[in-house]
């Protein structure tokens, strides 16, 4: 079984929480958003109109305010804030305004799952 990191929206995080009974579901996801808050070891990214996600950073994550980032991480509980993502790796896509259409691949999540999973 190869490693999969599904591209998700904040609303999908619960389906990938470790408490999820289905052992075939991975806890590692990919999420794309604009960095809107940096607080030392945590950060917040905003995924367009689809809500915010709290990230738990690693010491060597170098997120920059206002940049569009793609994060690969594990879904975990964040104290007092519900679900969040523990960052394993991040990729900086640069300026959010250079991204013509945010998240087209998530338009129909069921459809997308059908192709990739």
């Amino acid at each position, binding site marked *: 079984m*190869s490693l999969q990191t599904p591209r998700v929206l904040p609303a999908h995080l619960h389906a990938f929480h470790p408490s999820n009974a289905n052992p075939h579901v991975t806890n590692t996801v990919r999420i794309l958003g604009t960095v809107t808050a940096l607080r030392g070891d945590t950060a917040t990214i905003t995924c367009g109109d689809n809500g915010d996600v709290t990230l738990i950073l690693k010491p060597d994550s170098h997120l920059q305010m206002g940049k569009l980032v793609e994060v690969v991480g594990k879904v975990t509980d964040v104290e007092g804030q519900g679900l969040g993502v523990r960052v394993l790796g991040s990729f900086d896509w640069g300026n959010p305004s250079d991204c013509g259409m945010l998240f*087209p691949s998530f338009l129909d999540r069921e459809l997308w799952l059908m192709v990739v999973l």
Partner: protein
Amino acid sequence: MDNYGYGSSSYGGGGGFVPGETNSPAAGKSADGNNTTLRPITIKQALDATQPYPEADYQIDGADVGSICFVGQVRNISTQSTNITYRIDDGTGEIEVKQWVDSATADTMDTDDSKAGAGKNQVVNNGYAKIFGKLKTFGNKRFVGSHCVRPLTDINELHCHMLEAVAVHLFFTRGPVGGSGGAGAAAGGAGGADATMGGVDDYSAGRNLPAMSPVARRVYNLLKTEPQSNEGLHAQLIAAKLSLPMPDVARAGDELLTAGVIFSTVDEQTWAILDY
């Protein structure tokens, strides 16, 4: 009814009938390197691709694949004397990509690079890349033999690729956009996958067709467009025209008979479109 060997259907059929070839030139012709299609896919699809028999073309969604292209993040680069091996991850899976180093081309590429500014056009670890190549297997391990691995820096290109992969997948599994009601409705979520996908072949005319395999669709299409008497066409002739092995045509025929869109006329192997 599957007694026909591959040989009998390959070139023998047609006996004196000179066809006005109305099908797309790409139809048929597989396993001999003549498949010049380039299909956008995800790595999951590459890993799940099947081979009907050893040495045959790989198939994804029941359609032969020639060349493929995909995008993903580079997880590892290992440079050897004869090839560069990349490990690529696109979120749907991971696959190894081998790019053979030809000393002659390597030299010219070096010159090009130095002109363009060295290091600017480099594929780097954890960066995104777009890969063009062909599916291969060595031992039990699947990999991609690539002739082009280039860096990808625009996120729109990533999104575009993923949508293309979905659109092509839907084309092969559910038929062209607007072709059948069921497909159109189910694919509604994909929204604007536009009419260009439907333009590939004129399936869309007439009434709604049930979901069917690509081969069955081609057989149906031939029956629809080929000049014929009211006896329809014989399976052998269909096999010859579409360059398909007889068993495939027989299976497609069964499918179409079951779906009630064709009927057998003078014998069980001669079919005509069931029009009403």
